[in-house]
């Protein structure tokens, strides 16, 4: 078997902010609500607490984001997705939930630098000044769905794999030197 390949093989762009594709990264969609032992089951996989609405709890390379009232996004090393689903299935057995591996269905980018938010402000109808610490914002980047959260010196941006190239090109064109917003 081959090594897993991310959507763009780690493409990068340097402008007034730096854009780079990262991954492959493990991701699990967990749909569940009001299920006994949910917090513990998630913690066992990501090492984080269950996030409050619209928040993401990050612990190193693992994280758990609130996607909707009955959906979480678990982030973890690529190789661990299968085990995570097995662990969740065991912990939540007999209850109503759905855990699906979506590691390969996503493209993930880092947009870094002091003005990283300006790159995204060209694409998403989001008030960055009102973004809460630890907020996972699901929105649109130009014409496709995207989600991002602030992390380190920039943002982590997630979109669907098939439009990875589109989103990378958007981010790169937005980050072109000389086109800073302020």
């Amino acid at each position, binding site marked *: 078997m081959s090594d897993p390949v991310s959507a763009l093989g780690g493409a990068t762009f340097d402008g007034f902010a730096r854009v780079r594709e990262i991954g492959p990264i493990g991701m699990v969609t967990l749909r569940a609500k009001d299920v006994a032992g949910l917090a513990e089951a998630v913690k066992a996989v990501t090492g984080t607490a269950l996030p409050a*609405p619209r928040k993401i709890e990050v612990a190193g390379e693992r994280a758990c984001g609130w*996607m909707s*009232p009955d959906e979480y996004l678990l982030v973890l090393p690529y190789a661990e997705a299968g085990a995570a689903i097995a662990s969740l299935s065991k912990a939540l057995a007999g209850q109503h939930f759905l855990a699906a591996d979506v590691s390969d269905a996503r493209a993930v980018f880092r947009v870094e630098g002091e003005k990283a938010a300006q790159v995204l402000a060209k694409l998403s*109808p989001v008030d960055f000044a009102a973004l809460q610490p630890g907020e996972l914002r699901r929105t649109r980047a130009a014409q496709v769905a995207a989600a991002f959260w602030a992390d380190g010196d920039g943002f982590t941006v997630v979109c669907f794999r098939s439009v990875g190239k589109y989103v990378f090109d958007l981010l790169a064109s937005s980050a072109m030197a000389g086109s800073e917003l302020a």
Partner: protein
Amino acid sequence: MLVLECPYCGVKAEETELSPGYEAHLKRFGPGSSDEEFESYMFARKNPKGVHFERWRHVYGCGKWFLAARCTATLEVFGTYPAQSSEPPADLVAKIKAKRPDWKGYK
């Protein structure tokens, strides 16, 4: 360019993050219903120039359907509430009545 607050995630979403779904609180008529009932379910939509209850989906967000009370003549939004409601919440109805004394009410 409307802004509607998603009652599930609290995002004040702009129209381009939403997808519209027309009239809210439709009663589904399936097999066994009369032709008139089925026609009214499928086609006879409310089209008031004024207070209207309608469906929206936070499609570029949490993905949830929600309902909104909105004036089609001024685009004023009176409130939003979860789709899992068979009729508008009483407090919302009261709020609209206070703002629009002439409004004949829901139904």
